[in-house]
């Protein structure tokens, strides 16, 4: 099937070349980081995880979000999603690839990454995160490839694949739960120390993932002869509506507990993010923008007339995606580090090189996504022709 990815129009190749250029610039900047150290980033002793780990966290969500097309199809026999499960699985592959790369670029000694296997430490959540992420990548490659090949050959997918498909459903929940456990089990980090963190991560994942998938479906419809389908897109939109509403509800639960109990170690971080602390508040406009975007998303997705209008639906999906990205990709990680355990406020902002490396990783993710979607839509076009 790989041959389908290398047959394309001029526009397809220009896009691939553009991504390769972005990847190249990102990679050469990464070589600079490898030489100088993580000192080229904006991270510090106080904010020891920054943009890379935040993107990783957000993208684990996007990867897990793919399960929102797999679950209704395989567990509820919702036939309509059969057309697009492959898109969800391939989106998951691209996202997990980026997750793993973001971890690698965040390591101070990446050449020693395999120490996590050589000296496996089950008490460390990072050890488990490595297992669930690689496992999820493997599952999605296995399932996606075989399902697509079966479709191409006009036969049902092999029977032995069924158990893997069923396992992949709780596994998707698992990747984001374990990722939340990286943070929520740490004493002295009041912002993360809450049992709602994993459910909140999942809710925002099931909003961001399918929202991106809707956008991708609409792009696929425009650029290829394969139409993912109106019903499919509308069902996804309903899923996004529920998930983003639950996400905001979970957030408000957290806000109530924190501000009614008024325990400073828990309150200070949210205060920092939304009002600023000790005169420092670089993230304040971003956080409010995130809230506004998510609320706009909720309104546009809940009101049937706006949800059914695909032009408006795109706006709603962009709002949801951007809102959840700010929430997790900007606020969630540095918010947990500010103020620091000694209640000093050291702010964090990513540097230029840090952003370029981030862009490079996104470039790789989008390249993987492009090649996989090209294959998937190619097969779909073949089958319908």
């Amino acid at each position: 099937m790989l041959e389908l990815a290398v047959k394309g129009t001029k526009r397809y190749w220009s896009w691939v070349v553009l991504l390769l250029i972005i990847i190249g610039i990102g990679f050469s900047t990464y070589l600079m980081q490898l030489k100088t150290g993580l000192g080229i980033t904006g991270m510090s002793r106080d904010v020891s995880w920054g943009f890379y780990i935040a993107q990783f966290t957000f993208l684990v969500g996007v990867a897990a979000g793919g399960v929102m097309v797999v679950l209704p199809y395989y567990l509820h026999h919702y036939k309509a999603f059969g057309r697009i499960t492959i898109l969800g699985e391939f989106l998951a592959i691209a996202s997990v690839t980026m997750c793993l790369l973001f971890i690698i670029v965040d390591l101070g000694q990446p050449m020693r990454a395999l120490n996590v296997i050589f000296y496996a430490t089950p008490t460390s959540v990072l050890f488990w995160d490595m297992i669930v992420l690689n496992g999820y990548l493997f599952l999605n490659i296995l399932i996606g490839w075989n399902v697509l090949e079966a479709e191409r050959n006009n036969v049902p997918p092999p029977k032995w694949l069924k158990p893997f498909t069923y396992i992949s459903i709780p596994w998707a929940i698992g990747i984001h739960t374990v990722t939340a456990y990286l943070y929520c089990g740490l004493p002295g980090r009041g912002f993360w120390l809450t049992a709602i963190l994993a459910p909140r991560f999942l809710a925002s994942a099931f909003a961001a993932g399918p929202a991106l998938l809707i956008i991708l479906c609409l792009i696929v419809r425009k650029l290829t002869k394969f139409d993912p389908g109106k019903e499919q897109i509308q069902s996804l939109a309903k899923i996004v509506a529920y998930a983003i509403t639950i996400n905001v509800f979970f957030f408000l639960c957290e806000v109530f507990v924190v501000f009614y109990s008024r325990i400073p170690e828990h309150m200070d971080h949210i205060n920092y993010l939304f009002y600023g602390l000790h005169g420092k508040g670089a993230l304040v406009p971003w956080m409010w923008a995130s809230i506004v975007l998510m609320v706009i998303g909720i309104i546009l997705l809940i009101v049937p007339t706006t949800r059914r209008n695909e032009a408006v639906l795109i706006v709603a999906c962009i709002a949801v995606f951007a809102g959840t990205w700010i929430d997790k990709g900007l606020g969630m990680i540095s918010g947990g580090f500010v103020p620091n355990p000694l209640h000093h406020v050291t702010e964090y902002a990513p540097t230029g090189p840090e952003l370029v490396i981030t862009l490079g990783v996104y470039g790789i993710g989008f390249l993987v996504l492009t090649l996989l979607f090209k294959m998937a839509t190619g097969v779909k076009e073949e089958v319908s022709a």
Partner: protein
Amino acid sequence: MMENARRKFLKVAGISALGLSLGTKSVLNVFASADESADRRGKKTAAEITENKKALKAKHWGMVIDTRRLRTVGDLKPLIDVCHKIHNVPKFENSLHEIKWIWEDEYKHVFPTMESEYLADSIKHIPFLLLCNQCQNPPCVRACPTKATFQREDGIVMMDFHRCIGCRFCMAACPYGSRSFNFVDPRTGLDESGIFNEFPTRMKGVVEKCNFCAERLDVGKMPACVEASNGAIAFGDLEDPESDVRKLLKENFTIRRKQELGTEPSVYYIV
């Protein structure tokens, strides 16, 4: 099988003494040669690693800082300086790259959960000494995915700079901000003539922190800050009822940082 020679080496008390007794060789070189010969000759090398007879031992090392006797920045400076000097802790202009093993701060930052507006002036404005708490229940050790940070039997939480992958999970896990990361090559922040040969310098991309002067205990010396404190800091075995630290704890009211987290710090403050 996985346990390599360097690690055994780090665990056996008195290794630094071996380095010293070899005279010209630095500790770092001894590590390297041990690694190589271990590969070649297997177990035979392990027999050469012997314990220093002078090594100080305890079941659980602990520290009691008498803040009544350490009142000013000037009182603390020599302690901080000597530690950073003998552990080759670099200095950087860029505060984001700061590395510190031991430092000072105000009460409200050291004990943020016990802050009070009407605190006695004698406590409110004096500097408190901060270092790794050598927790008995260390969240950093739990979080580390490679056991690069580990706890010795005597309670000291150590770093294996050669195993650390630089993921900084331990820094997120530490509720005391005791850990530093080498964002750049630490040797660029050291005055070359001032490099102290009895302790290795680090490379970029690894985490470091106070080690209760494990390398000094192993050759029979007290921690450098304790030695420089003129008796204001006591150091000893918390499990020995007759030890100085236990006597001080019996006679004085002491507090520990963020006790409510259950990390069981081994550093006590008399206030």
